[in-house]
């Protein structure tokens, strides 16, 4: 492209040639920049939307119906209590006579997930019906924070727990957590 003809030739000819060569602008840098910006805008537009988690709560009844409360088989219920400072206590069955637990646990892979996974596997075996899996009741205390709740709901999604609910904590359970 840039061939300078030094060997001979009149001055007139030289001038015309150099003029022609100047007309082409090197666009490489410009294209580079344009593509960089395209990449940036492409990525930011898709990343802009935040993630979310679906939560469906049961309809609130105005009158307390004892029928629906006792309908749940106690052998299938696992209650998870969320306390302050990322504390978890869980038990199986009824609060006054839990047949397993109460047991302290921590969040994460090696903690509560192991227990949930074992219950997800074992409960359908004891009931003898794959449809009747574990029912998890989540009871956050007054001192737990929002992160705890989201973490536990996340565990439900990770372990594929079909039935779970968020409920109010009772004084006996607060005692299990050591909060009053």
């Amino acid at each position, binding site marked *: *492209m840039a*061939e300078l003809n030094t060997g001979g030739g009149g001055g007139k000819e030289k001038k015309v040639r150099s003029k022609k060569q100047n007309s*082409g602008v*090197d*666009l*490489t840098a*410009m*294209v580079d920049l*344009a*593509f960089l*910006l*395209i990449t940036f*805008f*492409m990525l*930011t*537009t898709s990343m*802009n*939307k*935040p*993630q*979310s*988690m*679906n*939560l*469906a*709560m*049961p*309809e*609130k009844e105005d009158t307390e119906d004892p029928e629906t409360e006792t309908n749940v088989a106690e052998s299938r219920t696992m209650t998870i209590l*969320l306390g302050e400072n990322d504390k978890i206590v869980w038990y199986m069955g009824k609060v006054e006579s839990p047949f397993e637990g109460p047991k302290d646990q921590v969040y*994460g*892979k090696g903690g509560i997930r192991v227990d949930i996974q074992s219950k997800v596997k074992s409960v359908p075996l004891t009931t003898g019906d794959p449809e009747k899996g574990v029912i998890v009741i989540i009871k*956050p*205390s*007054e*001192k*737990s*924070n*929002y*992160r*705890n*709740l*989201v*973490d536990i*709901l*996340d565990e439900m*999604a*990770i372990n594929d727990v079909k039935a779970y609910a968020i409920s109010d904590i009772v004084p006996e359970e607060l005692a299990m957590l050591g909060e009053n």
Partner: protein
Amino acid sequence: MAKGKMKKKSMSVDMTAMCDVSFLLLTFFVLTSTAKLPEPLPVDTPASTVQTKLPESNLATVTVGEGKVFFGILGKNERIETLEHIGEKYNIEFTDAEKRQFSFLEGIGTPVAGLKQFLNLSPDVITKAVQPGIPTDSIDNQLKEWVQAARVVTRDRNNKILDVAIKGDAEEEYPKIKRVMDILQEQRVNKFFLVTGLRNEDF
């Protein structure tokens, strides 16, 4: 000699067309991307592995952080109509300038009584102004009114059901979140979205 010359010439590619296309794309992305407005109440959302995207329209967001509750709805026209509903409810007449100002706000955290004064602040002050949050207690439950107004507007205007997202701070105490959920459930909004961040794989 002649061969060498030919080779040298083919080294440079004509970039004009490439440049045209890339700038066309660039313009497209610049125009389609929405400018992110500063959030009125910055919160640190907890992380989760669930990756459901939030709906892009007909969505109201209740932001909870630092013990305060903020309310926001998507769409400029929806915002204006919601404000009109609130004005009717509390007998406050908002001017067009105030409505316009409101339509630019991502979320609102001012009690209705101080809303008119707040909307008359100059635009560069309004995003930095500290707002006390919307009252949620049972005597003066303004959050309920906001959600109700937004639901009515969404139903009448777009013939859609309003989705509600809760954007809570990770360190926010549970009772506050529960209070917001209760207010929503009192209106039979039983399904909501919890806004979360993305968690890395090895959790």
